[in-house]
C-alpha cells in the first residue's frame, strides 16, 4: 500500500513539475465539481487537502441541484451525441437511412438514440424548472441578474439544440414543424434577415441539413458549454442561493460527501433515462416526404406556447408583426432584472411584480394549451 502510494505520489510529483495540476482541478470547479475558489499557486496535494477539509454547503441539494442536473444531462448528451455521430451522415439522401441503420442494425444504437432524445427533453424540463424557481423566488434581483440572464440563455440554447437535432433525423414528423418555425423566424424584421443569410430557406435543403448539423454538433454545444461555465463562475462569485431551513453550520457538508451525491445523481438520472427509453420509446417515424404536407404539424412541446401565441392573433395581422411581438416578450423576459430594478422601489410595487410574474406564467400555460388544441383542431 505504502509502496504503491509513494510511487503514485512520485508520478504526481513528476507531472506536477511539468503541468499545473491545481489549475486543472480548478477548471473542474468551474463545472460544479467544487464550490469555492481554488488557489492555483498551491501544489495539488495541498489544494486537495484544503478542499477536503473545507466545510461547505453543497450544490447537490434540492432545489439548488437543478443547475448540477443540467450539467450532468448535458454530459450525457455529449457522450451519446458523439456515439451517434460515428454513424450519422448529414445529407438529405442518407440522413434517414443512417438513423435507420443506427436504430436497427447497430448494437445498442436504439438505446443510445433514445437516451439522447429523452436526455434532451429532460434537460429542457430541468432548465425550465430552474428558471421558474428563479422567477418566483425573485432570484433575478441583484446581485444575481447575470445568473438569471445566463439561465434564460441556457434554456434558449437547449431548445435550439433540441430543435436542430429533431431536424437531423430527416423525419416527416419533425421536418414540417421546422419549416413552420423557420417561416416564423424569418418573418421577424431584421433578425429574420440575419438568420436568412446563414440558413437561406429550406429550399436548398441539402445546405440546410449540413448547416443544422454544424449548429447541432459544434456551435450550439460550444455555446451551451460557455454558458454553463458563466453560470458556475457567476455562482462562485455571488455565492450559493439560500434555501430556507438549511443547516449552514460549518462541518455539515464535505467535499467527499458532495462527490458521493454527484455519483448518486448521475446513476439516478441514467436510471430515469433508461426507464423512459424502454417504456416510452420515441417512435421512429417516416422519411421526409417533400411533396405532401401532413395534415397535422405537431410543434415540439416547448414551442407550443410561442406557436399558440402567434396563431392566437387574427390572420390579417402580418406575421412579421406577430413574430416581433413574440421577440419583444422574450426580450422583456430575459431582461427582467433590469425592468424589475426600475420598477421595484417600494414594498407595494414588489407584490405587484409578483402578481405580474404569476400572470405571465399563467399566460405561458394558456398558450401552451392553446397551441396543443390548435394541433388537434387541424
Amino acid at each position: 500500500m505504502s509502496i504503491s502510494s509513494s510511487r503514485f505520489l512520485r508520478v504526481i510529483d513528476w507531472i506536477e513539475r511539468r503541468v499545473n495540476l491545481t489549475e486543472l482541478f480548478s477548471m473542474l470547479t468551474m463545472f460544479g465539481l467544487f464550490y469555492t475558489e481554488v488557489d492555483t499557486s498551491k501544489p495539488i496535494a495541498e489544494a486537495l487537502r484544503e478542499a477536503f477539509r473545507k466545510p461547505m454547503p453543497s450544490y447537490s441539494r434540492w432545489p439548488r441541484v437543478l443547475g448540477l442536473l443540467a450539467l450532468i444531462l448535458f454530459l450525457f448528451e455529449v457522450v451519446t451525441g458523439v456515439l451517434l455521430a460515428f454513424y450519422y451522415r448529414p445529407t438529405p439522401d442518407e440522413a434517414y437511412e443512417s438513423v435507420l441503420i443506427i436504430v436497427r442494425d447497430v448494437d445498442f444504437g436504439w438505446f443510445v438514440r433514445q437516451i439522447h432524445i429523452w436526455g434532451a427533453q429532460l434537460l429542457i424540463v430541468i432548465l425550465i424548472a430552474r428558471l421558474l424557481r428563479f422567477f418566483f423566488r425573485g432570484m433575478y434581483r441583484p446581485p444575481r441578474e447575470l445568473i438569471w440572464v445566463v439561465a434564460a440563455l441556457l434554456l434558449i440554447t437547449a431548445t435550439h439544440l433540441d430543435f436542430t437535432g429533431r431536424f437531423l433525423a430527416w423525419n416527416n414528423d419533425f421536418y414540417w414543424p421546422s419549416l413552420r418555425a423557420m417561416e416564423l423566424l424569418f418573418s421577424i424584421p431584421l433578425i429574420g434577415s440575419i438568420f436568412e443569410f446563414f440558413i437561406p430557406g429550406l429550399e436548398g435543403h441539402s445546405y440546410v441539413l449540413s448547416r443544422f448539423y454544424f449548429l447541432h454538433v459544434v456551435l450550439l454545444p460550444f455555446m451551451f458549454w460557455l454558458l454553463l461555465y458563466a453560470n458556475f463562475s457567476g455562482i462562485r462569485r455571488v455565492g450559493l442561493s439560500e434555501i430556507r431551513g438549511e443547516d449552514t453550520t460549518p462541518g455539515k457538508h464535505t467535499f467527499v460527501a458532495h462527490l458521493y451525491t454527484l455519483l448518486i445523481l448521475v446513476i439516478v438520472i441514467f436510471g430515469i433515462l433508461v426507464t423512459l427509453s424502454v417504456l416510452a420509446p420515441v417512435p421512429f417515424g417516416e422519411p421526409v416526404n417533400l411533396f405532401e404536407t401532413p395534415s397535422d404539424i405537431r410543434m415540439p412541446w416547448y414551442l407550443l406556447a410561442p406557436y399558440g401565441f402567434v396563431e392566437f392573433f387574427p390572420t390579417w395581422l402580418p406575421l412579421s408583426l406577430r413574430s416581433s411581438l413574440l421577440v419583444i416578450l422574450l426580450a422583456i423576459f430575459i431582461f427582467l432584472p433590469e425592468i424589475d430594478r426600475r420598477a421595484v422601489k417600494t414594498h407595494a410595487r414588489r407584490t405587484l411584480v409578483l402578481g405580474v410574474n404569476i400572470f405571465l406564467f399563467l399566460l405561458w400555460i394558456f398558450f401552451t394549451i392553446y397551441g396543443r388544441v390548435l394541433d388537434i383542431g387541424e
Partner: protein
Amino acid sequence: MILLLILLTGAQLAGAQSEQCGLCHPEERVEHSLSIHSQEFIQCSDCHGGRPAAINEEQAHGGDFQSLQSRKQIPRLCARCHADPAQMRAYNLPTDQYALYQTSGHGLALVEGNESVAVCTDCHGTHTILRSEDPNSPTFIRNIPETCGQCHGKGGLQADAGTEANQLQDYLESVHARELLEKGNTNAPECSRCHGIHGAAPAGVGDVGKMCGNCHSAALRAFRDSPHASSMVEAGLPECLACHAHHKTQPSRYQQMAQACLNCHAQGSDQYVIGEKMEVLFARAEEELEHAREVIARAERVPLYVEDYLARLEEARTFLLEAEPAVHTVSFSDVDRFTSLSRSLAEEIEAEIDGKLSDLRLRRLLLVVFWFYLLLTVWILHHYRQKALKHRA
C-alpha cells in the same frame, strides 16, 4: 408581278407532281394526302385508273377508270400490290393477307355473295390509310376492339342481320380490356389475338384451350391433366369458356370457384365438394399471407430489419400464384401442395418476427433487474456518503 410569278410556279409545280383529280374531289384529295399511300407516292390512278392529268370529268373518267363502288372488287385490288412480295419487300410487310382473308369468315361470306361483310377498307379506311403503328389508325392495337365492334357490337351491322352482337360490350367489361385500354398493357389480347387478323374466324370447340393457352400456358397444362379435358370436348363444351365467361373474361377469384362448378355439377356432388375444399385452401393461405404482412409492418415500425422477410413473403405469394393454374387440374392434392407451401412460409415469417418482438418485451423485464442493481449501488454510495459526513463530524 412577283405574286403572279409565285402563283404560276406554284401551279406548275403542282401540275408536275400530282394529278388533277383534286380539282373535282378536294375532300378525297385531302384525305389521301394524310395517308401512308400518299407518302409512298401511290396516287389516285394507281387504284382508280383513268386519265389523271385531264381536267374535265369526261376525259378523266375515261380509259381504264373504275369507281370501285363494288365492295367485292376491293380485296383483289389491294392484293395487286399487297400480295406481291417484290413490291412489299422494301416495306418488310407480309404478303399473305389476301390468302388469309379468303379463308376467313369474312372472305368466305363475300364469295357467297354477302357484300355486307368486312373487306379491307372497312378496317383500314378508304383514302386515309395509316400504318398500324399510328395511334390514329383503326388497326392500332388499342383501336382494334372498336374497329371490330363497328359490326360485332350492339347496333352494328351484325345486329342488323339478326344475330346476337354484343361481343364488343362484353369484351369491354373483361379483364383483358381493362389491361389493354386502361393500363395500356399491350400484352393483353384484343380481338385479333384470338380470332386471327386477316384470317378472322370463330374458334371451334377443342381449339379454345389452345387459344387461351398461348398466354395462359401453365393453366392449359394443368387443364389437360384434368378429367375435364376429354370430357368437355366429348360434351361439346367450350373448355376454358365453360367456367370463364366468353368475351367477358374476368380475373379469377377463388371465392367464386365452387360457384363455377355449379354450372355443370349439382350442389352437394363430389365435384362440388372438391371445389369448396379448394376454396378453403386459398382462403386460409390468403389469410396467413395477410397476417404475415401485418406482422412485418409491425416489425418495420420498431424498426427491425425486414428486407429478408419481405423477400420470403414474395416467395410465399409466388407459391399462391402457382396454386392458381394448379386449380385447373381439379385435383385437391395438387392445389394443396402449393397453398401449404405458401402458408407454411408465411407462418415461418410470423414465428421468427414474433421471436424478435418478444426479445423487445424482454427489455421491460430486464428493466426490473436493472433498477434493482441501480438502487443497490445508490444505497451503497449513500452509505459511504453518510460515513463521510459522520467522519467529518
